[in-house]
């Protein structure tokens, strides 16, 4: 999946696959996680959010299941 670099305190890049609604997040530690069944509007939300880390914490963590890839 292609990820776009973002400016954030903890996330270094974010990608999204529209076909499968999969959100991919790379943290500054280098670890990459895929969140499954994330709707497109949530992806747009995190991309547009001024604080990506905060958006991730409030709208994604604890709502969608994830896997470390």
């Amino acid at each position, binding site marked *: 999946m292609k990820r776009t670099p973002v400016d954030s305190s903890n996330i270094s890049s974010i990608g999204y696959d529209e076909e499968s609604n*999969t959100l991919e997040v790379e943290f500054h530690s280098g670890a990459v996680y895929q969140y499954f069944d994330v709707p497109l509007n949530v992806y747009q939300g995190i991309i547009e959010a001024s604080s990506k880390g905060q958006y991730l914490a409030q709208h994604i963590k604890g709502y969608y299941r*994830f*896997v470390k*890839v």
Partner: protein
Amino acid sequence: MQNKSTYLGTIQDVNGTTVSVTLANESLSGLTYVNGEGYRIGQIGSFVKIPIGYIDLFGIVTQVGASAVPENQVQNQPYGNRWLTIQLVGEGQRNGKFERGISQYPTIGDEVHLVSESDLKRIYGQPDKPYFVKVGHIAGAESISALVDVNKLVTRHSAVVGTTGSGKSTTVAGILSALSDSKNYPSARIIILDIHGEYGQAFRGKANIFKVNANKDSKGQEKELCIPYWALNFNELTQVCFGDFSTEKEKEKSALIERVLAQKEKTLFTYPRKGVIKETLSVDSPIPFSLNQLWFELWNETFFTFYSDKGKRPLKENWAYEQDEDGNKLIGDATTATPPRFKPVKNVKEDEEKIQYGPSTLNIRGQLETLGSKLRIPRYDFLFHPGKFTPELDGNVESDLDSLLKEWIGSDKPITILDLSGVPIDILNTIVGVLLRVLYEALFWSRRLSQGGRHRPLLVVMEEAHNYLNDNFKGIASSVVQRIVKEGRKYGIGAMIVSQRPSEINSTILSQCGTFFAMRLANATDRGHISAALPDNLDGLTNMLPILRTGEAIIVGESVKLPMRTIIEAPPKDRRPDSQDPIVFDETPTEDSLQPGGWGIPMESNPNYEEILEVWRAQNPFPARIIKEKK
């Protein structure tokens, strides 16, 4: 004295290498200044020097205070309890090089001086020689690099020990990344037995990864780990096939030897190979042969029954096969390791048909059943069906061992990671044993070749060694590693043994390690084991082990000039082994946290346990749902 400020005290007693010193009255404050730098007096583990004539003796402070007072002096203390005990370690010419061992003893009245940073530089500081590798810096003296002699480190073996969380893996990664630096060592050769799959991340780009049940989707980063059974010698082969052969079964054993030899001969006849002819072939020669075929023949001979009525003889045409519903004889299949089915013995008066057991004298029914099941279950495929190295029934193989060795130790990358994280613990010992065995044998015989062990030594890093080098296992791993540590030095195979539980490692193996990287080690049994194995007699140093900081190690042994307390230089964050403990509750607030989980985050409302079952069944931690790179 030319430098009075370094003066510590005077020698009162010399007993072997142990020296007792009274501290001078002037140095009351416990702090002294040399060339503007402050030094604490009487720090355990710090160095002192004793100038005698043209040379300086060096020692390490091992005891300070009341218990350092010699017994007969307790009543009669001129200076209170201001005593030091020192262990002598070596000597140096004035402003010359430092050497291990001492040529003369100090005596009563000799002065003891503090070792300043410039002295330390003299002891430790090495000119910029490429055979010294920098693993960190001396604790308390950041400007002094901790240098380790590569020659001795590799061939004289080493051990990295420390409690979980003391920074072992990071230390190993630090050392290995220094050793695999392609500028200094363009043909470094390192194999890591990676029990937990931690190092792939740390050495990506520098290493080839082989794994049992490799992740096929990793775009070729992971290759399948195969260890062909026919590369083993006879004893090891029987051990992995049948378990332990009891000593009473000498007859069965020699019969098996002949069978294996006959199979290998057959292969050699059809597919001749360089280096071995019929006359020089032995049962231990690494010649492919079909174990399935051997097993099938033995099974037939051992289990067959035959029609014995009308004086029939036990020839193959008289064998009493069972039949399936369509009347086909169940003759079994060697390729799939399906055994034939024979009719039970029958001897009824009225019935003309008589069935007898075949006249087999080999008592190996149990063993054959064990081997049959091992040939059938996929868990042993890495050994019994090793991919392109699997012999056909006539002994033909697609690839020979040379391509295996080339992949493991002859590739363009300095490091090979053998990722054993997918291996069930009960066969771990076998795997480690057989793969080390293949490497040892190859490097032993190729000792005169440019790619052999003598001219391109190999360093084998054994992670979590207590799992397979345990005294309690009469396993094959322990015996192979004993051989490597005893003889590997001459043939260019060095071992680096990494463990958090040194007391469980076979003591022969541990005692052969020339260099120790001892990290924090709290358990008294483990510590005792280490101090017994240490090449230097320095009790004071091992007493320091429980209070070392994370990432700090005492390096002792042949590859360092002097024992040194070192802060190991950790590789950059994204190049560290992936052995971090799971976070239960992340201390950083969630919006800054690099962790997606933990107890502090509510769990998803509809957790998916089907995927948990999926990955368990697939024996592959990556569910199919993961989106892969689009091609």
